[in-house]
């Protein structure tokens, strides 16, 4: 990172502090462990020299039921996860899955080419690829040794 504070790490730290206060943890629970509290959808982000990839777990959703917006360095993934129609006449005996409206806001601390952002959906996992702007890419500078 170019600057002293990694904003993502900082956000993560704040989030985990908050989760700690609320009695949750981070990430998905291991088998048998208590369920952590974290806002739906659980999201990872990866960075390489060319792009940033934001990956969100959205099981049961399709590309037309999710809205992806990018504005001023903020990526928003929003939508609604509803119970399938067949459960309307049924009683719930266990409810662990998140339901209803969701909105996930992710700060992208690197300049990206906003018109080249692409997204894909596979097996309930959304991947948003944000190509870095040329000026944000690392450059190799060769120093001539005299």
């Amino acid at each position, binding site marked *: 990172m170019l600057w002293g504070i990694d904003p993502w790490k900082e956000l993560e730290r704040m989030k985990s502090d908050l989760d700690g206060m609320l009695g949750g943890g981070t990430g*998905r629970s*291991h088998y048998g462990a208590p369920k952590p509290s974290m806002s739906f959808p659980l999201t990872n982000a990866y960075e*390489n020299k060319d792009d940033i990839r*934001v990956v969100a777990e959205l*099981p049961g959703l399709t590309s037309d039921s999710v809205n992806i917006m990018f504005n001023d360095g903020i990526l928003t993934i929003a939508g609604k996860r509803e119970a399938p129609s067949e459960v309307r006449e049924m009683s719930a005996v266990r*409810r662990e899955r998140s339901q209803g409206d969701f909105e996930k806001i992710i700060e992208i601390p690197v300049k990206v080419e906003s018109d080249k952002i692409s997204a894909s959906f596979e097996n309930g996992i959304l991947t948003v690829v944000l190509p870095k702007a040329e000026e944000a890419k690392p450059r190799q500078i060769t120093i001539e040794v005299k």
Partner: protein
Amino acid sequence: MAEELEKRGKQTISSTAPESIGGAGPAFSPDVDIYVNGDKLLFLVDLPGVRKGDVSIVLDEQENLVIKAPTAFKERQGTTLRQFRTGDFFRAFQISRDYDKDKIEANLDNGLLKIVVPRKEESKPRAIKINA
């Protein structure tokens, strides 16, 4: 109806412990909703990253419903934010004798697994006529 096996103590699940999936990485417990009516039990299981055909649903020797699913999601380098980890999914439930375990149907769509366990005909609720 459906009782979760992990609540019955470690001994019960030892034969189907997460490690037996394949040993690669930790096993995760997927989020599950269970619905019921007079005809059936319906399980909704979140399995993000799992491909159709990769899910294994078996009835073990005690007739427990055991769900195992390896993830197809490939972890990448350069993580800057991590809220989920990837690995195989595992969950097991004990289902009451009122349900017909030979007629279980399941399908996976967009990472959401639906399992329907029909109620046995003789166990279905009946309206009892009251003679005047």
